[in-house]
Structure formats: structure tokens, C-alpha cells
């Protein structure tokens, strides 16, 4: 009934080729086709930010893209940031500052913050609040997240 489309998606530095339905959301493609379950789905209407990934370096809600649209593009997910024994400085900072509780929203925050910190290496707390105003956290009240981002900025500014 529905045609399948061939896609080539570069994700976390690895090329993936698949044959998929066009209506398959990028969030579902990452989680269930590629087994990269670190990207979480919170709402599927583009509000909560849990599914945020980078597409060509820009933070994007993966629940609002069809996977076919990512063909020929570069996607970065939380799995591309670091490993438990080799954490990215931003992951270290979240750990040290207790910037997560249940951890469900966390990958979305991290991916939103990577491009933000690149462009804003010395953000104020207000800057950070605005930067994360598209991500919902129900557990932390955001305070430790903001602490974590300031700590990450410090860590990432060291040469």
C-alpha cells in the first residue's frame, strides 16, 4: 500500500541505510530502527523537548520530522556525546550538579545545550533559562540544571 523509501542517514558518525515508510517519525526511527533509545519521546506534539537531537548541528524536535527528511543529513543523538566511562564535560557537569532526577528529559536538554554552549561560552543564569525554555523537566524545577550548565561552561572553557 505505502511505498518504502531508501534513506541514508549519518548518525553519530556512522552511516545507516534503511528502507522505511515516509510517515515514520525521526524519533521512532532513531529509537526503534537504529536502537538508539537514548532519545526519548514525551509528547509527539513538539512541546516537551525530550526528543531533541541535532540535525546538521541544529537542535531539532525529532518527533516533528519524518525520518525520510533526514536522509542525506547528519544527526547527532545523546549516544554521540559520551560513554559512562568517558563522559562529555556537559554530562560530567550534570552529574556533579545533580542536574537530573529521573533522567527522561535529560538527553533532550543535553542536545539543546551543546549548540547553545558553543555559541554562548559564558552564559548567565538568565541566558540559560531562556535557552532551555523549550524543554520541560518535571522533576528538578530546573535549578540544578542551570547550575550544571554554568559548571559545564566552566569545564568547557578550560583549554
Amino acid at each position, binding site marked *: 500500500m505505502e511505498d518504502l523509501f531508501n534513506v541514508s542517514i549519518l548518525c553519530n558518525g556512522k552511516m545507516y541505510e534503511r528502507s522505511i515508510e515516509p510517515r515514520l517519525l525521526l524519533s521512532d526511527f532513531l529509537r526503534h530502527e537504529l536502537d538508539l533509545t537514548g532519545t526519548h519521546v514525551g509528547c509527539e506534539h513538539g512541546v516537551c*523537548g525530550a526528543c531533541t537531537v541535532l540535525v546538521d548541528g541544529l537542535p531539532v*524536535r525529532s518527533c*516533528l*520530522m*519524518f525520518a*525520510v527528511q533526514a536522509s542525506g543529513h547528519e544527526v547527532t543523538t545523546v549516544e554521540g556525546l559520551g560513554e559512562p566511562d568517558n563522559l562529555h564535560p556537559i554530562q560530567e557537569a550534570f552529574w556533579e550538579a545533580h542536574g537530573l532526577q529521573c533522567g527522561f528529559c535529560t538527553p533532550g536538554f543535553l542536545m539543546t545545550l551543546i549548540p547553545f554552549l558553543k555559541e554562548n561560552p559564558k552564559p548567565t543564569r538568565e541566558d540559560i533559562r531562556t535557552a532551555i*525554555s523549550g524543554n520541560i523537566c518535571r522533576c528538578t524545577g530546573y535549578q540544578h540544571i542551570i547550575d550544571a550548565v554554568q559548571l559545564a561552561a566552566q569545564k568547557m572553557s578550560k583549554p
Partner: protein
Amino acid sequence: MKPAPFKYLAPGTLEETADHLDEHGYDAKLLAGGQSLVPMMNFRLVQPEVLIDLNNIPGLSYIRPDDEGGVRIGAMTRHYQVERNSVIAEHLPLMHETMPHIATVQIRSRGTFGGSIAHADPSAELAAVSIALDGEFRLQSKRGERWVKANEFFVGMFTTVLEPDEILVEARFPKIPERTGWAIHEVARRSHDFAIVGVTASLTLDKKKNIQDARLVYLSVGEYPIRAVQAEGVLRGHEPSDDIFAAAADTAASRDTDPSSDIHATSDFRRHLINVLTLRALHTALERATNNGK
């Protein structure tokens, strides 16, 4: 919530796109940024049989000054590109100031200028701003192309004059006159929510510092952005003063607009906010006009 099945087309040129639209008409929907369309598809509120993806067509994303001191924006230009663009900052400061108000960072990575205009959400800032800046849109189809003024483009809730076979491809904005100030004021529940009420304003003063021209365009007060023509008339030709501003605000709230109620605000409260925000916008615009837009 998963979208219903659709036939997916990814044309490489505008001509192909026009052909597809000619063939499918109302059965097809154009996919630009997807930030408004895809949520509706996920909710199954919208179930197009055919989805035509515009993202692979080169040459639709640009911001350029034109020969008359105005600006042209390609329909597939992403919001974040407009947000960071120095031509916009210099030539269309009202638009520049508006961009951070639009949704969130992630939405602005993908959302497009043309997509926002064509979707015509009554709360869309860019729609109101386009009218306030006397913008015009170029619509293209197999039958040819036409220009439509922003002021005449929006005709109903999520409804524009776009025919089923037409694609919005470009917006152009004329040069802003000297001694023009601008403002955008919104009240939203949370920082990035759709505004309960918003106003985009511009005031142009003549050499004697009287109001030569004004634009007051409101969002979230009707089925589409409403230009307060009568309120503008109250201002035109007069010396700026608290009284004249109050009269304009009152006219905008009671004559030009007829806001309705929804779960976030009643029409009474909206009318009150129209009044309040108009005054604030006029004062801000006046200050900037006096400082020659600085």
C-alpha cells in the same frame, strides 16, 4: 500519536512542485518546516493523502536587500536564519525583534518564514509583522505567479488566499521610511507560548514630529491578524500625546477588534490587554521614532 499514512513526494524544483499541486489539489499539503503541520498530523487532526516536501528545492532560502532599500526573503528561510541575519536587523528591526518571540529554539531551527505565513495561525507573530511592515507575498503555480499584499493575504482561521495549486515562494518588504519607530508587545502564559494578545506597531513621524503614518496589527484577537485601521486613523496627522494614544488604544480595543474567548482568556480580558499593550507599543515606537529608530 502516529500520523496516518500518506504518499510522500520530494520534488527537486518548484516546477515539479507546481505539477504535483496541479495534480493533487486539496488532497495534498506542502511540508516546509513541519513545526505546525506535523503536530497536527500526529494528532490526526490533519490527514493529507499526499505530502509534498519542499526541503529539497534549492534557491528558496535567502535574505537579500533589494534595489529600493527593501528586503526579500525566500519562503524556505528558517526562522533562526532570519533571527541572526544582519540585513534584517538593519532594515527590518521590527522583524528582528520579533524573532526570539517565536516559539522555542528548536522550533526556530526548522520552522520557515513561508511555512508560518501559509499556515496562518491567528497567533503567528510573522503574519502580524508582515502586515505591519507592508509586506507582499509572491505566489507561484503552474498557471503563473502573482503578488498579494500581506494585508489581504489572511482571510480566515488558518485560511489564506492561497489556491490549492499555489506555493508561497517569496516575501518582500519595502524600505522603512525615515523617523519610523517600531514595537512588539505580547502577553503569553509562559515565555514561549502563543500570545494571549500581541501587538506589532510602527509609527512614522514627519519632520514636525507629528504622526505621519501608523501601523497597529494584532495577533490572537481574531481569526487572523487584525490591522486596526480605525485606530491608525485616529493617530494619523496628530501630534503624539497620551490622549491621542489612549484614544487609539480604545478604538483598537472597541472598534477594530472583536476578540473571542477561549480557555486561556475571555474576550473581556483580551480587550483589556489590547488597550494596555497598544499604549505600551505606541510609547515604545514613539521613543524609537524620535531617536530615528535606534
